[in-house]
């Protein structure tokens, strides 16, 4: 095992040095960023490996870990969208709903064991995918509204609330956010070998098992993301937090 770690370390060092060398020869800038991202990945994944190793022995820790991941995912997404605190709650709810629905199905059917070893990586994948869907759909919603603001005003001028007017833009934004996943799923095995599949093969699983797990992830993501995108685009405010105090009044207890 120790020997394996050393070999991995040597390989990583060579890979990184080779990448830097190529960049230097090719006159590419951003060498520093490349180095930093490589080192960050090294530190982060090592830490995560330690944490997960601990969790595999203390299953209650898995929930804590996933909970933190959820919060961080909602935070990241909402920051990308530029949402308010209230929007953060909605994004969290949207991600949670997508992840919960998917995880419930794979657990109830017994496709995945109710054990940290199986649940943690699967759920983490779902959280990551749902986060991407929330970001893409939310950003898209606000971009569309900004681009077609005259139309948005048209709905509002007829008595639609800001939320109702936003709904006219929600469906398209949600659809658009699902294309990357659908493309990825369509091309799985043809254009790319997806991550879980590669990982399982490297870890010694049979190709058949690797395919099963990968399918659960890919198709699970389709469900998680469609739920998350649909909810995100309907719940968050379609316009940045506007509505600064319009008519300042004498300060009054709220």
């Amino acid at each position, binding site marked *: 095992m120790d020997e394996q770690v050393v070999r991995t370390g040597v390989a990583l060092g060579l890979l990184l040095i080779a990448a830097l060398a190529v960049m230097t020869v090719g006159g590419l800038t951003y060498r520093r960023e490349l180095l930093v991202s490589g080192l960050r990945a090294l530190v982060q994944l090592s830490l995560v490996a330690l944490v997960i190793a601990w969790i595999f022995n203390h299953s209650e820790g898995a929930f804590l870990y996933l909970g933190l991941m959820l919060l961080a995912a909602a935070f990241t997404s909402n920051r990308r969208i530029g949402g308010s605190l209230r929007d953060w709650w909605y994004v969290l709810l949207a991600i949670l709903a997508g992840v919960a629905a998917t995880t419930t199905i794979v657990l109830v059917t017994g496709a995945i064991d109710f054990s940290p070893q199986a649940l943690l990586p699967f759920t983490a994948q779902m959280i990551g995918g749902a986060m991407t869907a929330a970001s893409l759909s939310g950003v898209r919603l606000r971009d569309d509204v900004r681009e077609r603001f005259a*139309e948005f005003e*048209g*709905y*509002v001028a*007829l*008595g639609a*609330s800001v939320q109702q007017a936003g709904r006219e833009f929600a469906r398209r934004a949600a659809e658009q956010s699902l294309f990357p996943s659908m493309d990825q799923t369509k091309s799985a095995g043809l254009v790319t070998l997806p991550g879980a599949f590669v990982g399982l093969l490297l870890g010694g699983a049979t190709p058949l098992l690797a395919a099963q797990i990968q399918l659960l992830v890919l198709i699970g993501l389709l469900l998680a993301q469609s739920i998350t995108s649909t909810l995100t685009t309907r719940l968050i405010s379609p316009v940045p937090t*506007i509505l600064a105090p319009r*008519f*300042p009044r004498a300060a009054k207890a709220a």
Partner: protein
Amino acid sequence: MTGDRVDVAFSLAAVSISYGPQLVLDAVSMKIPKGGITSFIGPNGSGKTSLLRCLNRMNDLVANIRVRGRIEYQGEDLNAPDADVEAIRRRIGMVFQRPNVFPRSVYDNIAYGPRLRGRTTDLDTLVEHCLRQAGLWAEVRSQLSRPAHELSGGQQQRLVIARALAVQSEVLLMDEPCAALDPAASLAIEQLMVELAQERTVVLVTHDLAQARRVSGHVAFLQAEQVGQEQRHGHLVEFGDADQVFNDPIDERTRAYLTSR
């Protein structure tokens, strides 16, 4: 005029508008009469459109805007904490400078407002009625399912007006409704405005002085100027009966503006 309540649609008292730290309109007070057309005229940057958009709270959608003063519609404070802003916007409709039809059929453009309120019956009758009122029925009766953006600019603008009529707007706020149209289409909108103003209040922002002269019952002239050390900002120079303002303005600045055009 008899009592205020009967004849006044909007009553504005010391209305000031700023965007962030920038004051754009200072202390406007006036009473816009009920019925007929009241026009806001004046050079660019005098705050006409900003003022118009206060009258149905469309300015709520603008970031950093601050409106002070009091605006009443038929005696009701439009900015009261418990004001139903969606209801206000239904009662006080708006037509924009560029026709902003929805990416749907002609029919669905008009049905949007009523459907929003849960109306599902008699939509056909309502759609026809509104299109007739907007003088568009003869042109589109056979193409109600056609995408609205395929209509001509003038037809689109009349569709937008018909859409506002479908939610029973008592007032139409029109922000340069003819600015993007050719002369013939512009004239059609003008005639429509005059017709509609027989039964409701129309407030019009326009740069076309000839048009304002033809259609207005009352006129407000706004101008931006530098006063002392302050930043340049708009204010109301003169408000009154259209004949009086156009033919015998009280303020020298109004006279100068009218003759310079």
